[in-house]
């Protein structure tokens, strides 16, 4: 029986752009170009490697929750080699927090059917890194998270987690939720053939009704956290910059001593 893999991907504002908050204190998505979160590319890559190791007896669905433009993130993943896409799009989703997003993803994953869910370690915009754990809790399946190596063999997922104090080898039976770090292996570039093929791959569109989610469970109204203030960090006052003419180390020591660091 074929292995059903769902990869959760996020369409995020480009981190190298000038990111801002909109008036309602949600992320301003009009101001900066969006793209597939870099950290999710690693998730797509690992899913592809798991599929290749399974002699292609696997099917990869990429799933995203987001506005119309978020389909770009799906297309990128499809051009890398994923088989089909699911796009959850609904006006009522605007302003949904992490808990709400995990609810939408969990329902969409259950509807799609899955043996393995693969996520990136965190998004590059919110950077909370909690979504894989939230999904595991909601789906009631094991979490095998923050992996630098991952493999699937006969209904078991194995992985290596490099923690602060120890390296752990983990193991769980499928179904499970996995998240991978940027140490898991470079993501491949889509080939021209892949980009052309992606245009023909199916993308299913779902809204909140399809997932039996009430509008007040998500969006800004349904968020259980509220941002009251968002202030741009004041620009740092220009520091002292010296050119090393042989005394740079000494001058720096002088500065550090003045600041009482030595």
């Amino acid at each position, binding site marked *: 029986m074929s292995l059903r893999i769902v990869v959760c991907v996020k369409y995020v504002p480009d981190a190298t752009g000038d990111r801002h908050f909109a008036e309602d204190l949600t992320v301003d998505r009009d101001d900066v170009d969006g793209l597939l979160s870099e950290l999710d590319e690693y998730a797509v890559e690992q899913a592809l490697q798991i599929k290749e190791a399974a002699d292609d007896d696997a099917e990869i669905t990429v799933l995203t929750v987001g506005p119309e433009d978020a389909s770009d993130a799906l297309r990128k993943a499809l051009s890398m080699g994923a088989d089909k896409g699911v796009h959850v799009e609904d006006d009522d989703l605007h302003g949904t927090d992490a808990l709400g997003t995990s609810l939408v993803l969990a329902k969409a994953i259950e509807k799609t059917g899955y043996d393995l869910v693969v996520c990136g370690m965190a998004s590059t915009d919110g950077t909370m890194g909690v979504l894989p754990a939230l999904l595991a809790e909601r789906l009631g399946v094991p979490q095998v998270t923050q992996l630098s190596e991952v493999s699937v063999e006969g209904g078991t997922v194995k992985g290596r987690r490099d923690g602060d104090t120890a390296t752990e080898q983990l193991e769980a039976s499928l179904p499970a939720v996995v998240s991978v770090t940027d140490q898991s292996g470079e993501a491949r570039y889509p080939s021209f053939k892949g980009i052309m093929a992606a245009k023909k791959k199916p993308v299913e569109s779902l809204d909140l009704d399809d997932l039996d989610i009430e509008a007040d469970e998500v969006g800004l109204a349904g968020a259980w*956290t509220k941002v009251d203030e968002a202030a741009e960090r004041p620009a740092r006052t220009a520091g002292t910059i*010296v050119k090393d003419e042989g005394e740079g180390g000494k001058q720096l020591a002088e500065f550090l001593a003045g600041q009482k660091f030595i």
Partner: protein
Amino acid sequence: MAEVLVYVDHVDGAVRKPTLELLTLARRIGEPVAVHLGPGADTAAATLAEHGAVKVLTADAPEFADYLVAPKVDALQAAYEAVSPAAVLLPSSTEGKEIGARLAVRIGSGIITDAVDLEAGDEGPVATQSVFAASYTTKSRITTGTPVITVKPNSAAPEAAPAAGTVEQLAVTVAETSKGTKVVSRTPRESTGRPDLTEAAIVVSGGRGVNGAENFPVIEALADSLGAAVGASRAAVDAGWYPHTNQVGQTGKSVSPQLYIAAGISGAIQHRAGMQTSKTIVAINKDAEAPIFDLVDYGVVGDLFEVVPALTDEVKARKG
């Protein structure tokens, strides 16, 4: 006064500094009740009491070590049900965030992660966060349920505030469904003897300009002269010059020390995200146009292989 649960991060009862910071912050919003899971509660209790814990709830079970995260969520949930706290605070470590997230789903509460400050507000605790690579500061609160908040290391100075710290056993039943992810083996990381990267008061980091693993001792020597932790940029880590566990940046550690010294680091947004909240920033780079110089309090345009050893010698000389 309302009680506030504080999840204790420790190694066999040796309490790590971020937990003491949490106790200090917890006292602003209520009476801290520490939750200590695993061995060493008796050792930990004294430290926790000294920093304001009125009670230490403790439980030890092999499942905490044998399975990933979920059994600890069961235990924290048991503590939550025993106490009915005004808030639950955890350190913003990988594990702290995962435990907090799962607890939030179970108790129907909102979660805020990576707070850098916490204060009491009219409608519950208000958390300050630093977002978009620290280009914005936000203030947020939780509107539904009992606030679950994870706090970054170095967000407060630990203050002594002696309290009873009465140790109480917590009855915990680990659910079968929490035994899903087996920890097959655990290899402790070898200690370098240097301070922990996220907790250190001073961090010295090397980047692409260090130009090889064989040159990192130049960075380490400066760090050791200052009693600092060693960090590395993603470029240096990706090149295999330094371990990933020392990476500072968006996909590595986020640090907020009193002093951050960046040597041979250009200052890409990815790196800035992990160090921009440092109190004092110093950079050494050959390229006068490097974006890191926009952030610095003091910058030296020059060859790090000249400047860093000279600085190290000077630090040693001044420290006598």
